[in-house]
Every structure is written in structure tokens, then in C-alpha cells.
């Protein structure tokens, strides 16, 4: 549905977005994750045709955004970071304007009513946008993006400024929209991305540093915990001893940390506690534990690891 190929945007010498390529299938919800200034909004602005790319192409359902902008843009509903609201209009007047602007060919009143119901702003329909709280303004922006039922929805930080119950509501909405629409949405709230998206794209310094299905990126969701160990001794015996402990799922040797010592990561069931068993097993095996840390590998860890500058410069993808 969305095809992004070798997309690059330069501002002078600075590469804001550096040769990004990805595709999004119909009905997929793609999460865009990255620290501030990573190039998320720039990429979204290029996908929606607000700014043009220095090089590379964006194809929406077969229409290239710069070659055939009218066709491509008519397939996109876009909620920018700051909702583009005319604050001196009432909600209904504004939505009517956006409806006309987009040239939507649906029964006007019914469609606007339906969209307002969907984002729950029906009771604010005749209020002037200026007088609405940030959460409601965000929803009006959301409503605007949904007008005309575009097959592609691009949402730039749609839950910023909402209170927790509204966030849950909007997440549910995005999830339900994902059944009919192709959605790209960005956020810096990791739990939000993992709860909503099918796939996550981590972007840092204008480059994609990770692109994976949500459940593959995170061990949290698979119901496992991890224990990282530094143990002295031959790795084959250590690995087999560790694997003998019940409720251990997987042991992976990370790297040698010194002569005859190495770091291991042990994944095990979430509700078990294997620290004593590991101690006893290693003691029996006469391979002393030099260091032991327990904890979940969270998306936050992943995120920090992926976006730390060392990692990016190391060129790992």
C-alpha cells in the first residue's frame, strides 16, 4: 500500500532523513519510533507530500506522491504533530471545510456526524475550536484525518496531550481502524507502540536502525524474563548446566569478557525465580558466577540500545 524507496531529505549539509526504504502492507499498523529529531516527522511530511524529498520515491497505492500528487494525497488522511486547525471556526464548520477541501464524495452531513461520533466530539460540534482543550483539539485533528475514509492514515504523535483514559480510547480507535486502513503512526511512548502496532520501525539520526514485528522486538510480550550472567569456565559445560534448570527457555552466550570468562543471557518463564538454582548449578559445576543481573529486557532497553549513537555508528541494522 505504501512503498518508500531510498527516501532522503537534506537541509544544506545535514541529512535529516538518510536513504530510508520500507513498505507497509494493506491493513498493517506500523509504529514509527525514535528520539526527538530522529527524522520521524520529516519522513511523515515527505510521505504526505507536505515537503518534497531530496531523492527517493514514495508510492501510495500505485501513485507517486510527487508525480501524481492529487491522486496520492486523496488516499491519505494526515494528522500532523500540531493539528492543522482553524481555531476561529466551530468544529462542524471546520470539518465541513476539510470535507470540501478534500473533495470527499460521500453524503456530507451523515459522514461528518459519523466521524465525530467515532472520535467522540459530537457534543462539541458547535463549539469554537479556540475554546477546546488540547485533548479535544487533537480529536478534531483526528476527525479531519478520517474524513473521506482514506485507505492510508498517517498519524504523527496522535496521543500527545491526552489524558490516560483518552489515550486508551485513541489506541483502541487506531487498532480498530487498522482493520480497514493502513496506518503509520509515530510516538515516543514505547508501551503505546507495542500495544497497538503490528510492526515497529525504529529510526535514529535519519536511518532505520530496526524493523521488526512487534513480538519479535520485545521479549516482554512473550512472557519471559532474562538473567545476565558473567561466569568463569568452559562455555559448553556452563550452557548445558544452565539448560538443565527447569523453566529456562534459552541460553545465549553473548561475548567473552576475559580469559575463560563470558557473558550469558538466560531467558526463563516470567513467573519463576531461578537465581538460587543458577547459583547452585554453577557452584556444583565449579564455574564461579562473577556477576549476575536480573531484569526484563524491555522495549525501553531495546530502544536505548538501538538509538545510542555507538550502535548507529557501528552500522548494525
Amino acid at each position, binding site marked *: 500500500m505504501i512503498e518508500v524507496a531510498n527516501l532522503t531529505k537534506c537541509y544544506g549539509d545535514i541529512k535529516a532523513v538518510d536513504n530510508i526504504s520500507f513498505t507497509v502492507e494493506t491493513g498493517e499498523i506500523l509504529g514509527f519510533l525514535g528520539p526527538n529529531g530522529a527524522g520521524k516527522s520529516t519522513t511523515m511530511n515527505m510521505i*504526505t507530500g507536505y515537503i518534497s524529498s531530496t531523492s527517493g520515491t514514495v508510492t501510495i497505492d500505485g501513485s507517486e506522491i510527487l508525480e501524481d500528487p*492529487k491522486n496520492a*494525497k486523496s488516499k491519505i488522511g494526515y494528522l*500532523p504533530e500540531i493539528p*492543522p486547525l*482553524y481555531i476561529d*471556526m466551530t468544529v462542524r464548520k471546520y470539518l465541513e471545510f476539510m470535507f470540501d*477541501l478534500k*473533495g470527499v464524495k460521500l453524503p456530507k452531513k451523515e459522514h461528518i456526524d459519523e466521524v465525530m461520533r467515532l472520535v467522540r466530539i459530537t457534543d462539541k460540534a458547535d463549539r469554537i475550536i479556540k475554546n477546546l482543550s488540547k485533548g479535544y483539539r487533537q480529536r478534531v485533528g483526528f476527525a479531519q484525518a478520517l474524513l473521506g475514509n482514506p485507505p492510508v492514515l498517517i498519524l504523527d504523535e496522535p496521543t500527545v496531550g491526552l489524558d490516560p483514559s483518552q489515550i486508551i480510547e485513541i489506541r483502541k480507535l487506531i487498532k480498530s481502524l487498522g482493520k480497514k486502513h493502513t496506518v503509520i503512526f509515530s510516538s515516543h511512548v514505547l508501551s503505546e507502540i507495542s500495544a497497538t502496532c503490528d510492526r515497529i520501525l525504529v529510526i535514529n539520526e535519519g536511518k532505520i536502525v530496526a524493523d521488526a514485528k512487534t513480538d519479535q522486538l520485545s521479549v516482554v510480550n512473550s512472557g519471559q524474563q532474562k538473567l545476565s550472567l558473567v561466569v568463569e569456565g568452559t562455555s559448553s559445560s556452563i550452557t548445558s548446566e544452565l539448560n538443565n534448570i527447569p523453566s529456562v527457555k534459552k541460553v545465549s552466550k553473548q561475548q567473552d569478557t576475559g580469559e575463560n570468562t563470558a557473558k550469558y543471557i538466560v531467558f526463563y518463564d516470567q513467573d519463576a525465580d531461578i537465581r538460587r538454582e543458577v547459583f547452585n548449578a554453577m557452584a556444583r559445576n565449579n564455574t564461579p558466577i562473577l556477576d549476575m543481573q536480573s531484569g526484563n529486557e524491555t522495549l525501553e532497553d531495546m530502544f536505548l540500545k538501538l538509538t545510542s549513537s555507538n550502535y548507529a555508528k557501528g552500522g548494525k541494522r
Partner: protein
Amino acid sequence: MGAILKRELSAYFNSAIAYVVMAVYFFFAGLYFYFYCFESNTTSLTGVFNNMIYIILFLVPIITMKSFAEEKRQKTDQALLTAPVNLTEIVMGKFLGAYILYAICSVIFLVFAVVISFFAAPSWSVILCTFIGVLLFGAALIAINIFISVLTESMIVAAIFGMAVGFVILMMSTFTSVIPFEWLSAALEKINFITYYVNFSYGLLNITDIVFFLSFAALFIFFTVRVLEKRRWS
């Protein structure tokens, strides 16, 4: 384009701008009408027209200052530029919105002519000709000011810059007379709005004058589109 035009008009008429502009315009038009027609007992509106130029040059920047400057500041240009409409349609919508407000103001001249006709027969051909001149002059001026508005993010800057340009237009003859380079003063005289406008107020309908104002309007609408286009690429 229709949607943008409709919104522009509702923005003008749902805020104080349209009413303030109309009030100032009508006040000065009425004042000049009183001085030039009633005090000096004439049916000629030429004096009124010629003096209204000053007011128009200062009011048009007020009408257009919001058009793009405010969109950019409020980030609403994102909605326009990502909607399936092309840039020319956006600019034309903005232009026509401002132009319709300007035209509504200008209708006061026809009202004056009707008022005069109760006392003595006015020269309708001269009045209509001047009215056409006002409309054409306004088209060029609004296009220039919309172009100024697209260059900045601040309404105030747009308004002040627009007024400065208006002042230059007004003083063009004075400038050209003191420029020592003959080729430059001759060239500037060729784009002196006032010389073209004056012909209308004498009742002359020259094709040159009409083409001059229309091409000026078209040129600056084109420039505005190019600025919007260029911004996306830089």
C-alpha cells in the same frame, strides 16, 4: 478552490477584519465624496477616485496580511498542502477571497453615482470606466500583497511591508523624476501604477492599461505559487 474561497470569506466576515476594512473604506469614501462633489458642486467622481487610491494602498495589506502568514504560523498550511488540491487552486482561493471583499468595498462608488443621479445626470461612462479601473488596480495590488504575505510568518511584517510597497507605488513618479539614470527612470515609469490608473479615471478604456494590471496580478499569483512550491523543496 471553492472550499478555500468559502473559508476565506467566512474568516473575513466572521471576524472584525471585513467590517473594520469596510468601515474605514466607506468613511473616507464618504468624506471625499462630500468634499469633492457636494462642496464643489460637481457630478464628477474623479476626485473621489483619485484620493481613494491612498486609502486602498493602506487597506489592501490589512485585507491580505493574514492569508498565508497566519496559515504558516498556525501550521494550518499543512492541511492545505497535503489535501488533494494543487497550489494554484490554493492561491486563487486566497486571492479571490480577498478580492471579493475589496470588490464589495468598491461598490460604494456605484452607490455614490446613484446618489448624484438624483441631483444631476452624472457621466456614467466615466464612472463605470473608473470603477473598472479600481477593480483592476485592486487585482494587481492584492496579488502583490498576497505574495508579500507568503514570504513571512508574521501578519504585522506582511502588513507593514505591504504598506511600504504601496507607498512606493504612490510615489513612483517622484522617484523616477530624481533618478539620474534615464534608462532606469524610463523603465520604472513603465510600471508606474498611477499613470495607468489615471487613464481610467479620465474615462479612457485602453487595452494596454487593462492588460497591464491583469498581467501584474497574474505574475504575482504565479510568484506566490512558486514560493509555496520552492518551500517544499528547500
